[in-house]
């Protein structure tokens, strides 16, 4: 499972996380992706980072589908606290509750935290 838990652009983590997911997809692995905490902001639509000089990688999350990565989840409480709804996102993850997050984490072989 690859876990996105930090906001994009302020740090390199979400970009590195995305690169990791894409590589895993190329290796045909059974990858789950979770957006939680500030990580829910990594896939927000309409971010304008043109003034920052940092590559705009948010739209690249749409490529996950092309890599057959379908297990994409987002934590409901993290969305609510940050006022994020599904319409605000560049992809459509499945919204899950904290207990489902916990259960899913128990089933994973490896974690990659970003």
């Amino acid at each position, binding site marked *: 499972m690859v876990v996105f838990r930090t906001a994009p652009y302020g740090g390199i983590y979400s970009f590195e996380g995305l690169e990791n997911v894409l590589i895993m997809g190329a290796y045909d*692995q059974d990858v789950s992706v979770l957006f939680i905490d500030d990580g829910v902001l990594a896939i927000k639509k309409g971010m304008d980072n043109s003034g920052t000089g940092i590559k705009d990688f948010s739209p690249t999350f749409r490529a996950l589908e092309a890599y057959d990565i379908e297990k994409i989840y987002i934590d409901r409480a993290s969305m609510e606290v940050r006022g994020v709804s599904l319409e605000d996102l560049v992809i459509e993850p499945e919204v899950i509750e904290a207990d489902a997050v916990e259960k899913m984490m128990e089933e994973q072989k490896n*974690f990659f935290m970003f």
Partner: protein
Amino acid sequence: MEGPYQHEASDSAYQFTKAALAKGHEILRVFFYQDGVLNSNKLMDPQADDRHIRKQWSALAIENNIDFIVCVAAAKRRGINDTVTAEGFKIGGLGMLTELAIEADRLVEFRA
């Protein structure tokens, strides 16, 4: 992994690797990623009364013949290439981290 000295992550990773080997575990590979690539810099020259993180790693890699891989994309961003990496370190791709996740029983990540 994080960069050396700024956080304890490099030290923890080193101590963990050493302890795991001492307990008879097999370490398939150590993957240096993000600022962690700076662990491989042979120009590292800390003050004499401090630990030398890069030298510790090099000794561990050579003594135990372990694959120490420095992520190429992360390295290039930070001015690290094979003229800068010290003995025991090799430049490699991110796919080698995925391979680790597939092959190893456990993958342990060291972060700040």
